[in-house]
């Protein structure tokens, strides 16, 4: 029954998406140019991946881990740039290593001292970031000054996405989704009962690191399009919205992917139409709208459903 509800909502969302695209074409005479298609497909794929990967973070109550580790990636990017120059692969490897060090630092501090996880995350976020900023200002001081474009890594650049980028997102995104499917049981277990998974001999440290790495990769993929802060939102919002409608993990992850797809396509599509509207913020606005709808109208959990329930109980009495 719940599974079918997820299917219905997913179908409705996709139908809305197609309807919006059609209204755009016929109602407003929007031409779906090659650029627009590229941007919208890129944004949609990114949203889909973020929705799926983000679900696990939200369920583990580590939503802001994405925030921490994406800021923590900066020194890795800077060092990779120093060694290898502007090579996207090298920058991503650098980002991954720095973020993983951050994750290990968080684990080490929370396990060996009385510092709580949120504080440890805050410390890593800002200290790693500061180290990255120091390295960046060192790089900027270099006489050759070939560093232009590195702060795009922090803020993202709207609608400058190319077909090459979309291919990269597709390939890496497919890989991420495959890994999710492969480790489905393990991820499910550590999301709901970490201690049980550890006690049963699952390699929880490895799974932790793997999940963190997947979040890092997703964020790095999205930096071009949305920038760090807004990628954090895109990792959280679709999952939160999906959680209101359904209860099963499979249904939730799937629905989060569909919501992410919707927000990514519409958001980046709208911003590609009008130069004045930046991509990342538009995607976040749409995603927040989806969250608002879910919080209000979801059956059982939604605010309106809750209100009606208490109202009925009171009137019966």
């Amino acid at each position, binding site marked *: 029954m719940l599974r079918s509800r997820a299917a219905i909502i997913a179908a409705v969302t996709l139908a809305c998406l197609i309807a919006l695209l059609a209204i755009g074409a016929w109602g407003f005479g929007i031409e779906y140019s090659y650029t627009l298609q590229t941007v919208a497909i890129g944004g949609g794929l990114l949203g889909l991946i973020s929705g799926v990967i983000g679900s696990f973070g939200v369920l583990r109550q580590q939503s802001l881990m994405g925030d921490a580790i994406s800021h923590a990636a900066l020194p890795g990017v800077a060092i990779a740039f*120093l060694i290898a120059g502007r090579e996207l692969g090298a920058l991503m490897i650098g980002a991954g290593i720095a973020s993983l060090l951050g994750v290990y630092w968080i684990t080490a501090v929370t396990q060996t001292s009385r510092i709580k996880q949120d504080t440890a995350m805050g*410390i890593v976020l800002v200290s790693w*970031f500061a*180290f990255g900023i120091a390295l960046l200002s060192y790089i900027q001081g270099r006489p*050759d000054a070939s560093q232009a474009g590195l702060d795009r890594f922090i803020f993202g650049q709207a609608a400058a996405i190319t077909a090459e980028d979309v291919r990269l997102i597709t390939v890496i995104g497919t890989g991420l989704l495959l890994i999710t499917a492969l480790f489905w049981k393990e991820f499910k277990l550590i999301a709901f009962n970490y201690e049980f998974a550890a006690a049963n001999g699952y390699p929880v440290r490895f799974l932790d690191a793997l999940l963190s790495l997947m979040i890092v990769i997703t964020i790095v993929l999205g930096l071009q399009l949305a920038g760090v802060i807004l990628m954090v*939102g895109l990792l959280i919002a679709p999952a939160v919205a999906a959680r209101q409608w359904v209860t099963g993990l499979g249904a939730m992850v799937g629905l989060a992917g569909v919501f992410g797809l919707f927000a990514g396509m519409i958001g980046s599509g709208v911003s590609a139409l009008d130069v004045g509207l930046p991509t990342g913020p538009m995607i976040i606005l749409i995603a927040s709208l989806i969250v608002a709808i879910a919080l209000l109208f979801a059956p059982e959990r939604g605010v309106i459903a809750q209100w009606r329930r208490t109202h009925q109980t009171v009137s019966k009495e």
Partner: protein
Amino acid sequence: MDTILIEFLLLFTTPEALNSGLSDPRLVATLVGILVAISGALLGTFLLLRRMSLMTDAISHTILLGIVVTFMALLAIPGLEPDLSSPWLILGAAGAGVITVILTETLTRSGLVKADAALGIAFPLLFALSVILISRYIENVHLDTDAVIVGEIGLVWADTHSYCLAQCDPITITPEDPRAEVRRVCVNCTRGGIGPRDPEAIFEEECNNCGTYSAAEAWGARLIDTAPSLVYFPKALGVMSLITLLNLFFVIGFYKELKLSTFDPALARSLGLRPGLIHYALMFLVSVTAVGAFDAVGSILVIAFFIVPAAAAYLLTDRLALILVIAPIIGGFGAYFGYDLARGNLFGLQVNDLLVILDPILGLDGYTTWNVSISASMVIMLFLAFMGVWILSPRYGLIANSLRRSDQQRRFREQMILGHLANHPDQPEERALSTLHQHFGWSRWGMAWVIFRLRSQGAITIQDDLTELSESGRAALAAFRQVNLPHVTPQHADSVQ
């Protein structure tokens, strides 16, 4: 506010010395850094204890929305030229910070979203709104992204207000004044018509520099010969002094309320202490501090001044009052030595030398000058301070913990041996020195060390490869049993083998 501060400072020094001090980039940057660190650490302590450390991250991003909205509102008022240092912007930004808190808490209280996810929805949304507003409506205001993230603490000394101490009379220049720059202008001249030499031409006197000047302006325009006694006071220093005092008064004045509503909000409420009000006052001050520090250290790095010193102090002591003293000291330490680090000097260690070593490995192209962002270096120093405390803290540090653990392990091992010997008085093969380690599954050397210690304590004697419990060993064992196994009688313990 600044005037009081300056007069206070002048009790100790001359205006000339004060001016030369206040135009020293290093001194001003360090002072501002220390003030940011003190005010951040005071509030950050309570955020840490309330497990709201990451709220600073959210607030420091969403104050941008407050600044943008207030700026647009000020733009809409005709005849007002808003500038980015208006006090209204600080209030608007602080308001946005409070709105972030309210939005997050409303989401959390609905029970539909966990606290961390609520924060992760609220602040990207507000941040997205501000980015859209900026790019849509105030494109011409150049918001330097670098300045927003990192701040310009090295330059805050240059942005000053001037204060006059003596010879401060404002100067009014009238056209009759000899200093007035008066020129005669022909009012009815036209091209090809009436020329300036024409008798019909009407001349009027026009004064270029008439008007009223404050003493500082008059001196700047060289209208007076003797310099007024002026003090140039950096704006950021004034703002941060005010905010630091505000935070200090808040924490001291409402110490009891803050403490109780942090540790036991229910009790605080039942005692009528209004924990909700205290909570929002705290959040308002966090926002104000974040905005005030915005110019100096930027929007992201300011988080460090809230979180890191408080976390380090939390590892040193259990007493709230002490944390509130230690955290600002650690913060000030980071700000002070951070300036040196930015210039490549880490406690006398030269970063440039390290770069020279790294050059062939990383390929730095021979660029070995370490001269980097000051605020980032301050944060790095804070982090190093935290690492130092985490490792060295006498109570909660890594070293203290591992020493305590190895001490416990040693004592446990000694008791094991004593108990084993006491349980096997009649079985010499169980007490043979050469095979004893096999009974426990320990390494030979580990066993040798425990035996050595026990023997030097006089708890056991060794004769021809046979270990024997001595009288003092028996007494130690009995004492241990009395304390740790009070319900187990010795006979019973002996029968369990």
